[in-house]
């Protein structure tokens, strides 16, 4: 009798179906994008609403790519949705740093924290911060929304209808794009989308150098505006607060920390790598174009083959001012004290310090940035310094650093 039951095929069928039932719960569907373009979206509108500019839209968005609308004209979906698009961080790290660590829904960039298919490694560049979207003509719709952690679709109806920007852009297949929501005119408060096709993955960069280029994406008329009108921006980069002239020369000075006889750290510039001319920065928001990259060597620490602790002191000067001969500017690494310096207010001088030891991410929009190199645990070396590709964007008195890294060997513990 017992043998009959156990041999009975029904028993096996029941047991198997149970197993299948349980196993089916973990079905995974992978999302793929046919013929993709790679995009990364930044919201450069850092203003806060005050009584003076209260009629402007809240600079906090829900982005729709190829939006779909319901019968009443409200966006309800699309190819991609990026909700909680907050103002960008001062530093856009080369890896998807916020994805696993942040507990906030607010997204400092797109894709940022969104779980969407990201771009592959292209010519050695790690593009996990770029999202895949189908190439071709794409409609981008940015809806202004209140700052809260309520998802867009669950907001009250009237708050889902504030169109901020609605535009169509053409994306080519397998190209890399950086998109910026920018203020185009400081006086009329006109805003627009700035689309830059990146070329860093096509350029012949050396592994042993690190690169940086500069953009001035400030609004028309920002520098010329009344000083008081620039005040409400909270904690803005001190030295760039009032804006820079449309054409500025860039000088990079490399600073090497060392320990003196008394045991304290001293910051000193490397004499042969001081005031290095790194090209010109021109204000350009109408014709997006990649500016030339300036490369410099990684100054490895003395007796250390893999690690560098130098940092860069970047100065912006109006043309004809030469920091090597002009005596009225403090010599790096000294920092001018405060805004009393007349040049800061008329936009002929500005500076930023790429010193990771002074950089504080919690202090939004200050003068200090992480370095123009990346120090990570790679192989058996911890840390090891790698050259990366950086972009520094000056937008209405703020500066932002974006870093792209190459693939490097994974750490061995």
């Amino acid at each position, binding site marked *: 009798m*017992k*043998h009959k039951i156990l041999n009975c095929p029904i*028993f*096996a069928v*029941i*047991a198997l179906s*149970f197993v299948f*039932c349980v196993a089916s719960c973990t079905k995974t569907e992978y999302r793929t994008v046919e013929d993709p373009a790679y995009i990364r979206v930044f919201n450069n509108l850092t203003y806060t609403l005050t*009584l003076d500019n209260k009629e402007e839209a809240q600079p906090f968005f829900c982005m729709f790519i190829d939006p779909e609308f319901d019968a009443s004209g409200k966006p309800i979906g699309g190819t991609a949705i990026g909700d909680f698009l907050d103002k960008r961080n001062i530093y856009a790290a080369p890896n998807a740093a916020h994805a696993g660590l942040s507990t906030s829904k607010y997204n400092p960039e797109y894709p940022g924290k969104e779980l969407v298919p990201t771009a592959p490694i292209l010519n050695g560049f790690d593009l996990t911060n770029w999202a895949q979207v189908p190439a071709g003509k794409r409609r981008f719709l940015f809806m202004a929304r209140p700052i809260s952690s309520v998802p867009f679709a669950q907001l009250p109806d009237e708050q889902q209808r504030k169109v901020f920007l609605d535009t169509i852009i053409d994306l080519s297949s397998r190209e890399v794009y950086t998109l910026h929501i920018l203020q185009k005119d400081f006086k009329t408060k006109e805003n627009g989308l700035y689309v830059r096709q990146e070329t860093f993955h096509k350029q012949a960069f050396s592994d042993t150098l690190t690169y940086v280029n500069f953009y001035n994406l400030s609004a028309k008329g920002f520098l010329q505006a009344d000083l008081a009108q620039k*005040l409400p921006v909270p904690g803005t980069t001190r030295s760039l607060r009032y804006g820079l002239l449309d054409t500025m020369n860039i000088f990079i000075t490399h600073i090497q920390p060392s320990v003196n006889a008394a045991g304290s750290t001293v910051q000193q510039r490397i004499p042969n790598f001081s005031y290095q001319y790194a090209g010109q920065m021109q204000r350009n928001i109408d014709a997006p174009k990649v500016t030339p990259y300036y490369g410099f060597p990684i100054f490895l620490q003395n007796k250390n083959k893999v690690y560098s602790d130098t940092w860069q002191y970047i100065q912006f000067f109006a043309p004809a001012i030469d920091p090597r001969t002009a005596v009225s500017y403090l010599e790096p690494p000294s920092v001018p004290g405060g805004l009393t310096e007349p040049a800061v207010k008329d936009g002929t001088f500005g500076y930023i310090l790429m010193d990771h030891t002074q950089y504080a991410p919690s202090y939004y929009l200050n003068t200090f940035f992480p370095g123009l190199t990346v120090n990570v645990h790679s192989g058996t070396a911890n840390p090891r310094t790698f050259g990366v590709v950086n972009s520094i964007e000056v937008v209405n008195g703020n500066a932002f650093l974006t870093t792209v890294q190459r693939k490097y060997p994974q750490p061995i513990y």
Partner: protein
Amino acid sequence: MRPDILAINQKTVGRQTGGMRSGSMKILFWLALLLNTLFIHACKNKDLDLYVESDKYSNAADFIGNNYNLSLFYAALKQADLLDMLKQEGPYTLFAPTNKAFNDLGIVRASDFANMKQDSLRQLLLYHMLPRRLYTSDVPPNTIDNKYVNMMEKELFIGYKNQKVCAECTLISDFYVNGSKSVLATQNIVLANGVLHVVDKVLKYNPTIQDVLNSKPEYSLFIALLKRMGDWNRLGEPANTTVFAPNNEAFEKAGITANDIAQLDPGKYGKRLSRVYLLYNHFFLSDMAIYGQLPGSGYYGSPYYRARIVGDELYYFGISANTPMEPFIIHSQAPEANTPLRISNFQPGYQTDYKADNGVVHGINGLLVLPEEALIKEETKTSQQ
């Protein structure tokens, strides 16, 4: 797993343990069958209707009638024949002024409404209602100027401050409609046909700012000054103006009479003499509480608001950072950059936040610029360059 392997294994086990095992295998079979049935059965989701609408809420008319603190509002609704409407389906949102709010306007007993024109009373009351349900959660926190069309088909400007600075701090949850405040305890009162928020001020509305000022005899000298200085016409135009209106007492304190104003020569005075009271903007006093102070430091360095006086740009009008939020005037350049030239103060709350289609009027009780201070001198002209 292949069924035959399973069967062989089971056969071996059965042989070793004998008859005892055959019973338990049978049970195991039935248990497996049962488990599987249950598993499949679990996929079926029967709709459970756990939510039963409560019928214990009263309608708007009954709620107001049963609330002693809203007895004057009830009397007004009765006088204006609106109670029947408030018993209907709705939905309505009511901003119900307390008895204290009516007392501030000089209305102390129900019979006081009898003297009013029924039609304008009706309009005033409809101004306090929205033809929809609006809970505080529908308004984005820490925002101002959320506009909702009321039953008089005018926009109400709603602001909401919802802030908890630290885990142990008290939750600030203030709901403002046209500058009238509803505190946490009296917000979101659920009604069968809507929602009610108790507010501390009666909402006041006139079509234009000229109408607001004309309707109040205490501003006659101020009107005379505006007319004399050529700033009166703007207040009838659609462009927004927020007016900080000094009353006649303020002029008397400064020793200025109607005759003095009539004899002013507008060309001899800086624009600030009259324009210090006019902001080319639209805001309620509560908007400053919601947005908070401007960045900066110091008593007058980080005020709630500061704006250049139109036509006299060396001077600023501001609202100071201290608790009574004093309106002040300040010269923009050193050495007086952080010391106000003159300070005033607001009239009581019920004399502020008078809404018109083209702005708001707030009563103040002192002059900010005396005529002799605004005289254009030669040396002032050179210092302006």
